[in-house]
C-alpha cells in the first residue's frame, strides 16, 4: 500500500513529533489516519481493477475432428 512521496513525508514527520514527545492533537492523528485510509481504498480499487491473467489454450479443431487413421 504505497503512499505518495508527499504523504510519506507528512507521516514520517508526524511520527517523529510523537516520538519526540510533542503534544500532538487528536485532529492530527485523524488527519494521518485519513491519509492511510485513503491509500487503503486506492490499493483495494487497484487490486480489484487489475486484469486477471487468463490461461490461454489453443484448440486445434481440425486436429480434433480429423478422421481416425486419416
Amino acid at each position, binding site marked *: 500500500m504505497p*503512499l505518495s512521496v508527499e504523504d510519506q513525508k507528512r507521516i514520517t514527520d508526524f511520527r517523529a513529533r510523537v516520538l519526540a514527545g510533542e503534544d500532538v492533537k487528536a485532529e492530527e492523528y485523524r488527519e494521518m*489516519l485519513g491519509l492511510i485510509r485513503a491509500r487503503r481504498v486506492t490499493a483495494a480499487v487497484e487490486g480489484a481493477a487489475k486484469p486477471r491473467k487468463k490461461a490461454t489454450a489453443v484448440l486445434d479443431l481440425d486436429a480434433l475432428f480429423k478422421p481416425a487413421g486419416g
Partner: protein
Amino acid sequence: MSLIPAELTFPEAIDSSQRAAFTACPRKFFYEYIWQIAPAYTSRHLHAGAAFAKGLEIARKAFFELKLSKADAEIAGFKALIIAYGDFEVIEGETKSFADMLGALDYYFEQYALDTDPIRPLITPLGAAVEFTFALEIPGTVHPQTGNPILYFGRFDQLCTFNDTLFVEDDKTASQLGASWANQWELRAQLTGYCWAAREYGYNVQGAIIRGVSILKSGYGNAQEITYRPRWQVDRWLIQLQRDVERMKQCWRDTYWDYALDGACSHYGGCSFLPLCKSPQPENWLEPGYVHREWNPMVKL
C-alpha cells in the same frame, strides 16, 4: 568477550515459546535459552506485531478501565503503537511498515469497535483483565540448579466474555489469513496453557478466541476463530509439559542437546541458528550474526 555466558543456567521459568523451541529442536532451545543468543537483526514481523499489541492493549485499558471515550481511547492506542514501533524501518516494498501498522490498528477498530465489540474484557477488582499475566508452578517439577519448582509463565491479550461465556483472547498479526491460519489453533499448546492458567486462577474459561489481522500490500483482512479446551485436553497438556520439562532437564544433565536435523531446520524461511548447526565449531560463527539476549519471559518488552 564471548557471547556465551561464563556460567550456564537452566531457566527458572518456561513459557510456550521455550517449550515450542525445545519440542521443535532441543539444540535450538539450547542456543536460544541456555547460550542465550539471538540473531543480531530485528524481525519486522515480531517488531510490528509487538507494536500492534501495545496499541491494542493501551486502547482497551483506556476505554474499559480509564473510561475514556472511544475516540480518545483509540488515539491513546495509536500513540502507544507509534512509541512502540519507534524509528524502526522496513526495507522499501516490504509490508508491516509504520504506516501499515498504524492502518492495521485503525482497521481493527473499524472491524471491532471498542464500544460495540461483543468480546469484552472481564472487569475484575484489579481492573480490566487486559494483558493477563501469570506465573504458576508446574506441579512436580524441580529446578536442576536451585531446587525450586519450575514456573510456567505466559501473557495473553485479555480474559474476556463472549455470549456470557468466559474465554481467553489473543490477537495475532499475519501476512495472510486462510484455512491454514484458521486450522492451526485446534491443539495449539500456547492456548491450552492460557486456559490452564486462567482456570488455576479460578476463571472457568471454555477455550480461546483468536483474532487475526492480515497486512498485505493490497489491504487488510480479518478473521476470528474459537477453539474449545475441554478439561481432558488441558490435563493432557499439563502432563506433556511436565514430560517436556523432564526431557529438558535430561539434556541439561547430559550436557547434550539433540539436533532435530529435519523440517525444523527449514520451516518459516529457515531456522535462525542454521549457520551454527552447519559448522563443526559453532562458537566460531557467533559474531557478527548473533547477539547476547537474556531471555526472561517475565520481563515485558
